[in-house]
């Protein structure tokens, strides 16, 4: 049966993990010593934080890893109560068949400070029976007491040639032919995000058994959040209300994240500049704004308000003479 390739080809052992060699080396030492401190994995999306955590748990906990491994991701309501209840229930039982238990908390940076403080207490209380692995995109959003209790591992975006190697392997196993340049263009769009790279590859593979650069472009443009171009064009025509309404529609209905939207806005603006639809002065001015709003969204501002504000930058202004 077909499975999503991101799962089918998810590295199952530490050795298989791609592009994080120095981290893997250290983790293997922990496995040899059969003990580990609390760990924190930080880094952008799709660089292998979760994969590494699961692989480490398997290596560390052996045959009964599933019983002794608790994975909590950010979809689970993770207020203070959940942290206390779930983790407590899991931690107070002694590990059976494994040296200790491991709790993996994903996207800790989306927890409020209060919940993080609650977590810190739990981390202290169960040091004898359990170890924690925390993962986050931005370690700056983690409170200091937690950071100081963890060995911090910074995952870098995976290098282009390593992504290509991996894609190559998958393509071979799946009998997908590819013309030169195809995988390179996937890497270009994936921006060091292996999950995205693999998803692009699998999407492209639906086009046929031989895939080309064209196919990749096709997929990537289909996968773009819809209507970004329309939103921008409406703003450029001075229809702010229409533009704003469409933006809200897209974000509410499709659930497109602020980060995705702003990346698209950037790509769209950059394309317009290439096509000479906007002057270079205006372009660089807009890029400055986009960068600022991007930063704010990642800092935790309300993405929709920030994007609406960004739209006002596109409105035609009367020339001050």
């Amino acid at each position, binding site marked *: 049966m077909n499975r999503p390739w991101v799962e089918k080809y998810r590295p199952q052992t530490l050795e298989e993990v791609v592009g994080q060699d120095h981290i893997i080396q250290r983790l293997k030492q922990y496995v040899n010593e059969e003990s580990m401190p609390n760990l924190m994995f930080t880094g952008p999306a799709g660089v292998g934080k979760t994969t590494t955590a699961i692989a480490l748990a398997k290596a560390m906990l052996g045959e009964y890893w599933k019983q002794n491994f608790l994975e909590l*991701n950010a979809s689970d309501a993770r207020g203070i109560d959940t942290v206390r209840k779930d983790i407590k229930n899991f931690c107070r039982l002694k590990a059976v068949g494994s040296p200790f238990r491991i709790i993996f908390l994903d996207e800790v940076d989306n927890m409020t400070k209060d919940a993080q403080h609650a977590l810190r207490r739990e981390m202290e209380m169960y040091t004898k029976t359990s170890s924690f692995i925390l993962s986050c995109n931005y370690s700056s959003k983690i409170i200091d007491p937690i950071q100081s209790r963890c060995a911090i591992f910074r995952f870098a975006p995976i290098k282009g040639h390593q992504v290509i190697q991996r894609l190559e392997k998958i393509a071979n196993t799946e009998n997908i032919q590819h013309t030169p340049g195809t995988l390179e263009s996937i890497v270009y769009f994936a921006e060091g995000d292996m999950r*995205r790279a693999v998803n692009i590859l*699998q999407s492209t593979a*639906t086009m046929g058994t031989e895939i080309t650069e064209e196919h990749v472009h096709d997929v990537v443009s*289909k996968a773009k959040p819809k209507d970004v171009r329309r939103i921008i064009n409406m703003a450029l025509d001075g229809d*702010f209300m229409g533009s704003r309404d469409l933006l809200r529609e897209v974000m*509410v209905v499709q659930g497109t994240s602020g980060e995705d939207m702003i990346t698209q806005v950037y790509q769209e603006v950059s394309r317009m500049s290439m096509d000479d639809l906007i002057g270079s002065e205006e372009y660089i001015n807009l890029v400055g704004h986009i960068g600022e709003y991007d930063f704010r969204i990642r800092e*935790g501002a*309300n993405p929709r*308000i920030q994007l609406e504000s960004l739209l006002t930058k596109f409105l035609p202004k009367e020339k001050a003479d």
Partner: protein
Amino acid sequence: MLWTEKYSPRKIDDVLGNKKAIEQIDEWVENWEHGEPQKCLLLIGPPGTGKTTLAHLIAVFFSDHIELNASDKRSFDIIMNTIGEASAATSLFGKGKKLIILDEVDGLHGNEDRGGIRAINKIIKESHHPIIMMANDPYSKRITSLKSKCQVINIRKVHTNSIVALLKRICVKEGIEFEEHVLRTLAKRSNGDLRSAINDLQVIAQGKNSITSNDLEIISEKDNVNNIFDSIRTVLKSKNPKRIKNALRLDSEPGFILEQITENIPREYEKPEEIEKAYDMVAEADMYLGRAFHTRHYGYWKYTYDLMGLGVALAKDETYKKFSRYASSTFYSKLSRNRAKRDLRDRVATKMGEKMHTSRKVAIEQFPYFEIMFQPEDLARDLADYFELDDAEVKQFRKRKIKKRKTKKAPKSTTNKDKSNRKKSSASVVSKKTKTSTKSSKSTEKEEKKVLTEDSNKKDEDKKKKDHSSKSVSKDNGESEKPEAKDNGKQVSLFSFK
């Protein structure tokens, strides 16, 4: 000592104003004293008009009283424990009645005080004791269910003249010389709120021999809670910092206020430059909201208020002399209008997140790629099985039904435009199918065949039922049967909703 307490009325007749209401209350008390049980009382009126005072004054006519107000947490359990038991019990000596005072019933919090209104209703129904309740907002949804069961008495604002008279008496007793117009200003400002008038007087007069109009400056105008649209109007029409600051004294979350101001910027401002500038301000205000949330340092809110208030106000060149129709943010209406779609999206994202070890957010980010992967039938079918998506959930990724498969694996096909009875019967088959097929993915094909035949039998039954029904056989029914014939009846045709 607070003057509001010191000069609080000692007898029910001393209460200022509201003569008619007081008569009604008197009568109510008398009837109880004569052993005639009465409906419970609900006093509704603005703050500072003597509701709580009245309740306490009549308490002396009863053997005892129990009170719960907004500072107590008032969930179902708490109310039942503190009042429920006491109210259901009758006193040993028969005659003694306990007065139950429930203050600020319209202030029951939706979340913290869950079930509070239910508990009150229960107590009203079961209690043998007199109950008196107070509320500020006559239109509060929370008290609609109570109103029908109570004798409602409206308590009105106290007349300015009555307030002035009382303030005078206080000044005389405290030995303070006064100018009458000062007291009149205080009374007017209080807007019928006797308590705040006395408080204001105490602030400017305590420890002094005389008060003059200069003293009025040290107290600001009363903190009136404003209506949100009035506030937005002030922000968008005015440039006066004081007025704007006052206007934003609202009883809402700053995030909500920000949303509403943001919504109405382009409804008032016309020049793109103004819209841009105003939006700069709300965007910045929003940053501080985010920071406050993440750090739990709510001191940041003050920047939010200034930026979205005065900041937005100053973005205009000059005030527009027009009537603008303001509206509540379309964001909220979009949210509720698209609830079904969002629920579907989140449900799918949760299922996928479980399989792919990601949060919903990350799963949703990958949706566009899955939309492409769900186009070929085979892959779509397999992915749907893998993620355990039912037919309705597959709709997130493709509009067309997934066609049946020629081999023996979980067939999935969907037809649009079905009659409702068919939808129902087939939907149940669908869910069964998804379950069985995923479970059996490891088992042998033989077993799968068995499952399929079973299901197709079921399908046949469904079809028979359908044929008996009065509805004529529709066009798409014919369509769905054609491929079935090819598959020698082994395949099940499944339907889903468009």
